[in-house]
Every structure is written in C-alpha cells, then in structure tokens.
C-alpha cells in the first residue's frame, strides 16, 4: 500500500527549478533514504511531501495518513521558554504516560523537564523524534536528522530509527548525506539531484564496485556526491568515470 505518491513533481523557487519531474512513492513499512549533494532538492522534496510548498504535479496521500515529521532545523527563539514536555504537546496534547513512552522510545527519557534551548544537538533531535512519534505515525519523515551529530552519534540514531520501524511497522523516509551510515538501515536509497538520478536496494548498490569505490569510507562518500553532481553528461554511463548508477536501478532518461 502506498502511503504517499508523487507524480511529475516539480518545484520552482524564484524562477529556479529546484525539483523537476520527480516520481516518488513510499510503501507502508519501508525505510527509504534520499541522498544527494547540497542544493539537490532533498529538503525541498520533503517539504513538498508534507504540503509546505506550492508545486506542480500531483501528490496523493493515503487518506488520513498519520505523519510524523522531524524537521531539519528548528530554531527556538531564546525568548520562547519551552520545556520538552510542553513541546511534545504541540500541536496536539498527549497524556503524560504517552509522552513518557515516546521520549523513552526516542532515547530521551530523562529530558522531559529540560528546556529545549539547553539541549545538546543529539538530545534535541530525540525530543523532535519523540514529538513525531506521539502521532503514532504511519510515515515518519526525517530531514537530515543527524546534522550536527558525530559519526557514532549518527550511527546510534539510525539504529534507533530502525528499531522504531521494526517495533511499530511505520514507514520511514529520511534525508541524509551520510550514505555510508544510512545504507545498512535502508530498504531503498534514492539519489536525487534536481531529479531522481537513481534508486535501488542498498545491498544491490553496496555490492557494486562503483559503490565501494565511491562510498566505502567517510570523506570519499562526500566527495563522490559532489562528483555525482558534476557528472550529469550521462552518455558515458558505462565508461571510465566511476558512478553510483547501477544499470537496473536508473529510472530517468539520461540525456
């Protein structure tokens, strides 16, 4: 069953096409990771899917889809006092027991009474995650949830996401630039750069030599994403340039 499906999605921002003709769908229970270089439209895709952007094309949602959203960044003004407990009650109030459960599941059980502004990056993310869980989501959308976390922290966070999926059976859609960390937890990886470049099961991608060459270690992964960005003359797809594109996984027309 498809939870969200987008057909021919295009988003323009100030006359500049950020996303062009993107087809996307996510099934119940699936973990999908969207990767791509900076400015490739990853966050734009997430924001279009939650309904925050005007866009062309169609977005169909399962009726009454319960959505849990963890934004990329949340700036809480220093003038706004906000305990974690209070934050979890936005926009819908939940029982104290439910909040405690959600915090525990997100790995932040001791945070309830803390001020949001005092939390570390990792704790903040856990509070955001707990809030998203309170909705009992069928689909959890996380936009670069590990930004600002170190690598072990990221790995632990993704492990937690996978556990949550396994326990609840909810679908997870996340954006990341840390492909090597995310890979193992994902059912499907979609690489976008203004359009869908390629997608596929991570084990298929991971076994490919190109993948090992590109995403084997930390910095190379980041480098590879950049290279990807600049190598969009796809006519030499089978040629010398190492490339993530796996023949069977490419879904768009290569110009």
């Amino acid at each position, binding site marked *: 069953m498809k939870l969200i499906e987008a057909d021919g999605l295009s988003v323009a921002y100030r006359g500049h096409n950020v996303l062009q003709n993107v087809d996307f769908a996510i099934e119940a229970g699936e973990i999908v990771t969207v990767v791509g270089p900076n400015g490739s439209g990853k966050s734009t895709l997430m*924001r279009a899917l*939650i*309904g*925050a952007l005007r866009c062309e094309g169609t977005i169909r949602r399962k009726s009454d889809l319960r*959505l*849990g*959203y963890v*934004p990329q960044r*949340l*700036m*809480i*003004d*220093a*003038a*706004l*006092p*906000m*305990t974690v407990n*209070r*934050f979890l*009650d*936005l*926009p*819908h*109030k939940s029982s104290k027991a439910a909040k405690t459960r959600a915090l525990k599941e997100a790995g932040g059980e001791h945070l309830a009474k803390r*001020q949001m*502004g*005092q939390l570390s990056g990792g704790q903040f993310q856990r509070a955001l995650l707990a809030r998203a869980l309170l909705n009992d989501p069928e689909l959890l*959308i996380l936009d670069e949830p590990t930004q600002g976390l170190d690598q072990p922290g990221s790995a632990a966070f993704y492990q937690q996401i996978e556990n949550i999926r396994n326990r609840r059976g909810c679908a997870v859609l996340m954006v990341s630039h840390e492909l090597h960390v995310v890979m193992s937890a994902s059912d499907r990886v979609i690489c976008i750069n203004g359009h869908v470049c390629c997608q596929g099961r991570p084990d298929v991608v991971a076994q490919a030599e190109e993948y090992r060459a590109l995403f084997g270690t930390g910095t190379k992964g980041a480098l590879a994403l950049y290279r990807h960005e600049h190598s969009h003359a796809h006519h030499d797809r089978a040629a010398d340039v190492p490339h993530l594109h796996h023949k069977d996984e490419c879904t768009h027309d290569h110009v």
Partner: protein
Amino acid sequence: MFRISTIKTSAHTTMFDDFLMRAALGGVGVALAAGPLGCFVVWRRMAYFGDATAHAAILGVALSLALSLPVFVGALIIALIMAGLVLTLTGRGLTEDTLLGVLAHASLAFGLVAVSFVPSARLDLGAYLFGEILAVSKADLGVIWGGALLVIGLLIWRWQKLLSATLSPDLAWASGFNPDREKLVLTLALAIVVAVAIKVVGVLLISAMLIIPAAAARRFAPTPEIMAVLAAVIGGVSALGGLQAAFVFDTPAGPSMVVTAAVIFCFSLILGRKRD
C-alpha cells in the same frame, strides 16, 4: 457650613474616583491583551512589525477625524491595511528589517502630515501620540475591553496552532494546518490592540506595552503559557503603577506606564534566574 463642605467633598471625590477608575480600567484592559500578544511579537521577532502597524494608526486617526468616524474604526482599518502591506511586500528583494524600517517611519510621517490637514486633530496631536488615559470615557472603556477580550479569546482559541506555527511553519504544515493563517490571526490581533490602545498609551508607545512586559516575564517563565500570563500581570501592574506615579509626580500617564514596565524589566534582569 459643615453640610455644604461635606457635599462638596463627596461630589469632588466621586468624580475624581470615577475618571481615575476609568483610566485604571482602560490601562489594565489594554495590558491584559497586549501582554500575551506581545509574547508572540517577541517570540516571532515582530517588534518592528508592531511599530509599523502602530505608527500607521496615526494615519487612521487623521482619516477618522476627517470622516467623523470613531478613532478606533479608522485606526483599525489603517492598521490592518498596513499589516497586509507588510505581509505582501516582504520577500521582494529587501530584507524584512529594512522594509519594516521604511514602512514604520514613513507611515508615521504620512500620518503626521495627514493630521496637519485636520484642524481638530492638530490641536491635540499629543493625545494621539502619547495617549490620554485620563480622558477615557465609558464608551472608550467599552471599546477597549471589547477589543481586549476579543484578542484574548482569539489567542486562547488558536493557542496551540499559533505556538506550533511560531516554532516552525513546517511543523504546522506537517500537522495539516496552514501557518500563514495563524500569522493572519496574529496580524488581526495586533491591529485590534493598536486600535484600542491609542487612547491609553498613544501610537508611539504601543509597541512598548507589547514588548516590555513580555520581555520582563521571560526570565520567570518555564513555559509559554506562564510567560503569557505573567506578561499580562506585569502589564497590568505597570498600568496601575504608572497611573499612580503620574498622579503623584504629575507626569504624563502613558509614558509613566511604560517607564514602570521598563523598571520592572530591569528588576527582572536582576532577580530572574536565567534558565538557559
């Protein structure tokens, strides 16, 4: 002899009590709405927006007097137009800060020029700039409390959504509601507060009654709700304290209320525990 003097005194005292009582009620009414609304102004960094809306109201005053409308009506209309103008103009090349700076001061200047064409307003321009709380009539009180209760009701009704949209528009979208609508609610509330506060503190100091009580409440508040209630209380205390001070020291009432609020803010810096 004794009788006459008694009558005289009692008549004097009654009338005196009455206008001071009306002034106090008017000040407290404005403060109760301005405190919680001011919290949103502070949280969303809309201070300049408040200024622009308030300053534009002087144009509304001129309009009202020229057309023989109640001051409240003209001020409300112009404040709404101004707020709408700001909302549509932002994000068109100029930064919001610059745009609001232009609009806030231009609208004040336009208003002052417009007022000069209306002889009756020219006479008591000071009353519209700095308020004239001691001249608050029973009808004014009706307008002030009507507007204040409307704003408080609006804030309570939309509270959860307003707060969510303030934290992050995307959180609002993901939860299935439009944060722009919440922005409109705040804009409407702001225009109402500006319109009813002119009589009490005048257009120049309305922003102060929005921001200072909220800022003073911050240090003592662990949650947004407590901050909103505290801001209302601090605003009310400032209104009463300022009125008292104005009476004792023979100073203008509106500015004295703002001075009181500012003093409370200073104490909050010293007394309040910084929580983060």
